[in-house]
């Protein structure tokens, strides 16, 4: 086997789940229960680690069931699935934290897992001491920590507090320091479970950069996440787990679409706006009910593919007393997670207000292509009736933009580098001298 490869054969893991105790109802029952309880407790506690053949199905659960996989050196594999699908259990077995009930795994190379950052941090020790302690817990040698110490502290950005006991740190500082230690591991196989969602936006960007670096250095990475945009951006191959079994093993696009398809058939596809955010301004003239975005391939939901044709639907309602609406104006602004507005579509700004509108209805906004690069965004909705602001939903929910390749070039914009991505309405040309002749646009002539 080559360094960095993983071979899994018939892997299964059974857990015991709690079974309710029946409570005694009589005084006599309670008295005999008092005597019998220690015996029952002993049986129950013993059963945590012992499984008999006669164990019924309802007291145990197969967190993983007969998984077989081959992962090659240098592959970046995403593991997705609903809660309880077995993702974390798989990572825990691979990192030797827990032992499988059946099956075997062959791992070649040093394995490091980032199941949770900051494990083993001791509040009484200083940041410096914790870096060492955490480093050796994660499997580094002391010499290795010595060598990387400055890089770790610089990455965390808290050099000033490095000799302060960790108990005086803010939780954010603690997480940053902990992640910095983890990020400087150099294993052949790296297992990551949902740890990239820590810290502020700037620190998250740093983490993603580090992740990208690890990817390019030819490391084998197994990455568990619920953030589909991140999975598709980072992974070449994605394994979809469902109730402990491999439901799909394929390219990230295929698996993510399958997963999202599965989730949209079970969950709600519209984002319903609650009383506090449907933005009734008190005038009671209008309220926003719900919204969704439509993608030809993904259907109705909160996910769209970058650069693809899509449509936003916004449902509104006016009180029953009114018969219809006059001069309805609506705007949608998409903001990044920091709240910076990125783009706006507005009936008002382009002079296309609806002169009349039904009492309740769904406004549809069609976009030839969505120029946002993959990532998570927030939607802001604004309305006015007869020129007076009505319902405003400042934070109407999240929009996930997934990678897409609308032009079929095979070249995808990257989150860190490209900002808003222009697809059409522009042309490139080249000449020897400056060419300042710009065709007059229709509006200015």
């Amino acid at each position: 086997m080559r360094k960095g490869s993983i071979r899994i054969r018939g892997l299964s893991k059974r857990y015991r789940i709690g079974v309710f105790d029946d409570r005694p109802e009589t005084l006599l029952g309670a008295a005999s229960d008092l005597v019998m309880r220690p015996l029952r407790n002993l049986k129950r506690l013993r059963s945590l680690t012992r499984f008999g053949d006669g164990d019924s199905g309802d007291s145990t659960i197969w967190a993983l069931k007969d998984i077989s996989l081959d992962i090659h050196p240098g592959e970046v594999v995403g593991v997705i699935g609903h809660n309880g699908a077995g993702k974390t259990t798989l990572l825990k077995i691979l990192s030797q934290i827990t032992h499988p009930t059946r099956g075997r795994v062959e791992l070649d190379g040093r394995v490091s897992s980032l199941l949770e950052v900051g494990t083993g941090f001791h509040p009484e020790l200083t940041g410096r001491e914790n870096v060492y302690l955490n480093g050796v817990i994660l499997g580094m040698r002391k010499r290795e920590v010595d060598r990387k110490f400055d890089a770790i502290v610089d990455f965390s950005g808290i050099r000033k507090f490095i000799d302060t006991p960790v108990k005086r740190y803010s939780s954010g500082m603690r997480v940053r320091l902990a992640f910095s230690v983890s990020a400087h591991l150099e294993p052949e196989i790296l297992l990551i479970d949902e740890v990239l969602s820590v810290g502020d936006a700037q620190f998250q960007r740093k983490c993603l950069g580090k992740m990208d670096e690890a990817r390019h250095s030819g490391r084998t990475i197994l990455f568990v996440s619920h953030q589909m945009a991140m999975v598709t951006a980072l992974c070449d191959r994605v394994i979809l787990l469902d109730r402990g079994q491999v439901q799909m093993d394929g390219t990230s696009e295929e698996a993510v679409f399958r997963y999202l398809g599965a989730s949209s058939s079970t969950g709600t596809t519209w984002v319903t706006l609650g009383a506090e955010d449907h933005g009734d301004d008190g005038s009671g003239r209008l309220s926003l009910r719900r919204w969704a975005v439509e993608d030809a391939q993904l259907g109705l939901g909160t996910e769209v593919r970058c650069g693809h044709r899509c449509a936003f639907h916004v449902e509104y309602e006016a009180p029953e007393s009114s018969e219809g609406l006059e001069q309805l104006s609506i705007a949608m602004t998409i903001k990044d997670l920091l709240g910076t507005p990125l783009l706006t579509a507005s009936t008002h700004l382009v002079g296309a207000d609806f002169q009349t509108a039904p009492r309740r209805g769904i406004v549809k906004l069609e976009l030839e292509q969505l120029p946002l690069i993959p990532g998570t965004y927030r939607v802001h909705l604004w309305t006015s009736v007869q020129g007076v602001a009505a319902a405003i939903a400042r934070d109407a929910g999240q929009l996930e933009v997934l990678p897409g390749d609308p032009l079929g070039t095979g070249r995808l914009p990257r989150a860190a580098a490209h900002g808003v991505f222009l697809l059409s309405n522009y042309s490139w040309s080249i000449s020897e001298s400056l060419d300042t002749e710009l065709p007059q646009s229709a509006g200015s002539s």
Partner: protein
Amino acid sequence: MIDAGSRLKLLDTRELWRFRDLFYHLVWKDVKTRYAQSVLGIGWAVFQPVFTMLVFTVVFGNLAKIDSDGVPYSIFSYSALVPWTYFSAALTGATASLIASSAMVSKVYFPRLVIPLAPVLARLIDFAVALAILFGLMAWYGIAPTVWAAALPFLVLLMMTCAAGLGLWLTPLAAQYRDVKYAMSFVIQMLMYAAPVVYPTSAVPESYRLFYAVNPMVGVIEGFRSALLGTIPMPLDLIAVGSVSALVILLTGLVYFRRTELYFADVV
């Protein structure tokens, strides 16, 4: 290589060696954080045995008038309290260690053996401080150590083996059955009366003595007294019996620990 059906080696020395830095750091953390934010600090290592000695001297020495093999009762009991305090602290620390580091155990892999063994080693610091006080007391009473003092390292090793062996048994049990935690202080107190801390071994009937010595701390404590105070000739028979039983406890404890450690993350 992880195999559901595989039998583990009793001791994976290569892996332990690979994680030696971790072991060192855990011991160091234990030492460093034990008395963090306390006024007396390491003074607690002196306080505890010395005060126990004072109480014992009043109660057992002056009131109950228990025989002390010809030396002042205070130094008689203190010489036993030095190894005994170590033993009880190391055992309590080891037993609680797995539960205390449950977050680590369920998140990261490393040889689990280092967890209970770290306090066994770390408590040696307190032991050394208490031992220094014992030497001070000996000087005060004008008692010179015998040539057997050269055997002290062996007695210390025996004492550590005993604490480690019992620790290996109790650590997994404590993780699965929290009763162990509640029983601990009580059991250690009981055990103290099963060792010659407040009374001399000469008070135990001759025919029961070898059976009595199955508790390895009997040999350790009498060995300490014999080597440092010269109360009785070196009780080699007691020490031999104790050594065998300490080794048996250590080996069986190791087997038990290695068998249960696979499921620590599931039960802790």
